[in-house]
């Protein structure tokens, strides 16, 4: 069978003030009908640029060379009008951020109708009927009514379904999905991936799946292209890439990602450094500066993509033969740093001091309506009577989807004042009783690291001032501050020479280290971490995770670690609490919860997360939750999860009445394992 889409030696170059940006250099692949090829890479690797080149959507200033043929027909060099008749008709695209990808002022139905009418001769009424059919096909409930809704009336997951409906509309030959689930919560991601698979099956289209999430690749792709600095560095079937990787970068990517199905007792191997800038590339293999195996030839000549023993598996690496012959794994190639263990590690949990305790913490927001005369129309129970305690030297992970109340919990703790109801006790002191002076003093002991390292530091302050600011606020002497700042830079793995540079000169990972140094400046005992690695590229995450673990060991810190990524939590946390709509539904020792999840929500959450192992993914039975998170202003009665609960659906009516009648409370279901479910049963989902 001849390939439907064939890309040969694609080069894309943009002009910039710093010189030509060579975003893609020599990419080739063939794609057959019904097949899915994943392009994997970090930000700046050229994967999105490739998709826009196929669509012909680059600005005129971009120079595109090589050949892109669709069913034998050359696309490069076609006029924009000619390309317009192909776009949306034969090649369709699903973009990353569904919140901004739909025009806010037109209805969903109108936008799908538009897609249909440009390409096929039909009446508006016919197109509308077809649009409703398409919405039904992608699982939008009550499609005839919902077609008349505007995008802002849809949730993120629903909007992505609409995008998929639009992509399917004209029965395309190729669907390009550019990070289609990156902006979505995991349970919604699982739904959208299912819909995407269905769309591909119905249209018989070939699919290019662009993503940085190796788990998604393992579950969805047939072939994989790994890109680094604009170059394809390894290509092959999904099994070749995951089970027989030969390029150190691929091996590193696979090995440095925390795994949901592995307990995190050991440090992660680390891929040092950051991807190079594609503006000024040094000669040689672009990965050589980060590659422990690189020798002089790697640094002077760039290796070509060449076939290995199997013709479909191609690698651009001089060391590939050596790696495959000696069977190197990531442990052999990448250094695993030694992580110091905490002085409290041997002390049983019960004997450690409680450093942070929440009891019946509540934060309800009034829901207001009206422009001039505002009145309360409801209550959003953002945090609803939660209990949590953190002992000295341990890490407690707080997981949940957006809207579950994780961030509100953090903000309530950092407020250091009297909560709406319930109590917060830090280092044995009730925050409600603190005087102004004591509250200020307390700030020394509890500090925070934010999610977005760029937004959390002042871009107009040099690094020295950023780290020195909290010290100055607590009236420390000038000489003392200077010494402390350089100590801190060293502590987080930055160089003293970095002190007078500005945040924009640093990569994401380094910026997060600056944020950590600032948080540590006052020698806190508790660190609150709000998604500290979720904004970082995968190859950078491991370094920051290891740093946090090492700091905890050296300084005896206690962490409250908030994340939506369950794999990261499994790696870093000692205990984990799962939140749903403002309540903790399951809490316990981390391996216990991950191996015997008992709440149906925890089970669904874990089952929704793709695991970067194609064999495991193929054999997995996924629990896919239906619907979205209900509005926190109007949750179901009794158990808030019952509207989406797969277990609830299997219960008889008497049992269902129990769920609807009373909200379950946390009760013990094992040693250090409590769950809030009337009918909870442990299940193995990994």
């Amino acid at each position: 069978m001849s390939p439907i889409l064939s890309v040969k030696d694609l080069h894309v170059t943009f002009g910039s003030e710093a010189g030509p940006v060579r975003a893609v250099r020599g990419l080739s692949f063939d794609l057959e009908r019904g097949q899915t090829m994943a392009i994997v890479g970090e930000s700046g690797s050229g994967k999105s640029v490739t998709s826009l080149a196929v669509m012909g959507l680059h600005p005129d200033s971009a120079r595109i060379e090589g050949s892109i043929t669709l069913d034998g027909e050359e696309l490069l060099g076609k006029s924009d009008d000619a390309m317009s008749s192909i776009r949306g008709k034969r090649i369709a695209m699903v973009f990353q951020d569904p919140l901004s990808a739909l025009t806010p002022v037109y209805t969903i139905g109108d936008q799908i109708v538009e897609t249909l009418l440009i390409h096929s001769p039909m009446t508006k009424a016919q197109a509308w009927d077809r649009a409703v059919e398409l919405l039904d096909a992608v699982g939008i409930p009550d499609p005839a009514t919902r077609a008349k809704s505007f995008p802002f009336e849809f949730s993120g997951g629903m909007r992505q379904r609409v995008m998929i409906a639009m992509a399917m509309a004209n029965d395309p030959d190729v669907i390009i999905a550019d990070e289609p689930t990156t902006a979505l919560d995991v349970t919604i991601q699982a739904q959208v991936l299912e819909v995407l698979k269905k769309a591909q099956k119905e249209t018989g289209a070939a699919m290019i799946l662009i993503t940085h999430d190796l788990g998604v690749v393992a579950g969805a792709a047939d072939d994989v292209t790994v890109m680094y600095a604009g170059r394809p560095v390894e290509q092959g079937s999904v099994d070749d890439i995951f089970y027989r990787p030969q390029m150190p970068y691929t091996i590193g990517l696979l090995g440095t990602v925390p795994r949901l199905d592995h307990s995190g007792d050991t440090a992660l191997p680390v891929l040092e450094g950051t991807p190079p800038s594609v503006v000024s590339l040094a000669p040689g293999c672009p990965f050589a500066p980060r590659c422990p195996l690189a020798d002089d030839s790697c640094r002077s000549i760039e290796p070509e993509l060449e076939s290995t023993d199997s013709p479909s598996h191609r690698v651009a690496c001089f060391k590939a033969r050596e790696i495959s012959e000696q069977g190197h794994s990531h442990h052999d190639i990448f250094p695993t740093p030694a992580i110091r263990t905490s002085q409290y590690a041997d002390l049983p949990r019960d004997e450690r001091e409680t450093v942070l305790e929440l009891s019946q913490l509540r934060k309800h927001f009034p829901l207001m309506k009206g422009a001039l005369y505002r009145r309360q129309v409801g209550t959003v129970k953002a945090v609803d009577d939660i209990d949590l305690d953190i002992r000295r030297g341990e890490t407690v992970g707080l997981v949940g989807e957006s809207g579950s109340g994780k961030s509100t919990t953090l903000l309530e703790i950092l407020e250091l004042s009297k909560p709406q109801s319930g109590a917060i006790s830090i280092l044995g002191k009730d925050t409600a009783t603190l005087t102004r002076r004591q509250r200020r003093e307390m700030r020394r002991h509890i500090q925070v690291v934010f999610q977005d390292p760029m937004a959390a530091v002042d871009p107009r302050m040099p690094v020295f001032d950023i780290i020195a600011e909290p010290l100055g606020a607590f009236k420390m002497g000038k000489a003392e501050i200077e010494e402390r700042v350089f100590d801190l830079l060293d502590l987080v793995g930055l160089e003293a020479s970095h002190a007078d540079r500005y945040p924009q000169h640093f990569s994401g990972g380094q910026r997060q280290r600056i944020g950590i140094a600032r948080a540590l400046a006052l020698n806190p005992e508790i660190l609150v971490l709000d998604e500290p690695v979720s904004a970082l590229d995968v190859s950078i995450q491991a370094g920051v995770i290891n740093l946090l673990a090492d700091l905890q060991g050296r300084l005896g810190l206690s962490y409250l670690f908030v994340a939506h990524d369950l794999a990261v939590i499994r790696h870093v946390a000692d205990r984990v609490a799962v939140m749903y709509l403002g309540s903790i539904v399951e809490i316990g020792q981390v391996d216990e919860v991950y191996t015997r999840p008992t709440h149906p929500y925890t089970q669904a959450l874990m089952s929704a997360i793709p695991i970067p192992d194609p064999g495991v993914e193929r054999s997995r039975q996924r629990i896919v939750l239906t619907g979205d998170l209900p509005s926190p202003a109007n949750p179901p009665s009794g158990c808030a999860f019952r509207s989406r609960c797969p277990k609830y659906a299997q219960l008889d009516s008497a049992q269902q009445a129990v769920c609807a009648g009373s909200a379950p409370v946390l009760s013990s279901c094992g040693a250090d394992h409590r769950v809030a479910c009337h009918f909870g049963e442990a299940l193995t989902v990994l």
Partner: protein
Amino acid sequence: MARYIAKRLANYVVLLFLAVSAVYFLAASTLNARAVYAVRNPPVDPGVLDAMLYRWNLNDKTPILERYLVWLKGVFTHWDWGFTATGAWVNDDVSIKMWVSLRLMLIGTLAGIIVGILVGAWTATRQYKPSDRAFTGFALLIVCTPSFVIGIASQILAINVNRWTGVTIFEFVGEAGRHGSYFGAVFFDRLQHLLLPTLALLLIQAAFLSRIQRNLMLDSLGEDYVRTARAKGLPKSKAVMKHALRTALIPTGTYVAFSLATMFTGAFYTEKVFSFPGLGAYFVDSLMNPNPHGVVAVTAFSGVCVVCGAILSDIAVAILDPRVRLG
């Protein structure tokens, strides 16, 4: 929606009442109608003058609070906005002059809005190209030049064009002038008089609005949904007009609603330069030849126009943006 607008309206009415009252006190205490007669030769008999001013409620010997209450009663009971120092009724003055202003402004403003939006949108799609730079430079020149300079410069240009072509294309003194007796001559004459001020207004309005629209458009051109529209197969021009421009018009709607409502209050410089006896010129004349009731009436009228503009802009945004309408 109706409730919301009614509430906003009630708020505005209270504010407007307070503002107009404040202007009354300011105007009545600083503008002395007696000054109009101070330079009369022969001098007017003081007793007769007092009686005259008293009749028109303009006598500075009456306590200001008393004058205010009389004036307020007149406004609320008879819709009587008072008299000028020469005995003309302010209601008549304003009701004539507001239409003069409107005739002067209407075409220039509307055409200026349309041209401004189109030029702004078009230059945004051609960012940093020579055409964009040329329009940007020209627009900035117009925005920086005081409007009376533009008015006078356009007249000098018009005289030269008239002289060069040998035909009187442009007329620019007053609203109407000599005209022939053929059918439609009166109308044609009026159009001829309007041509130059309309062009000047159009230029000013369009230059200003094109800057705003260009920036709004640049933001919306970079939006993901424009890329989605292109990915659906819309040619560039259609994607730009239907998706980018449509959303970039939402903030413009606010501005346009205001400028439409305030058209009645005129443009002082344009009216003066082209000798159109409109409301803007009337307001300044009322300050020069003390006419406190005229000042208050024009202020109140402008206030009403601004309130209408605010409501119009709320409605415009609600029409343009479903998020406001339904959210």
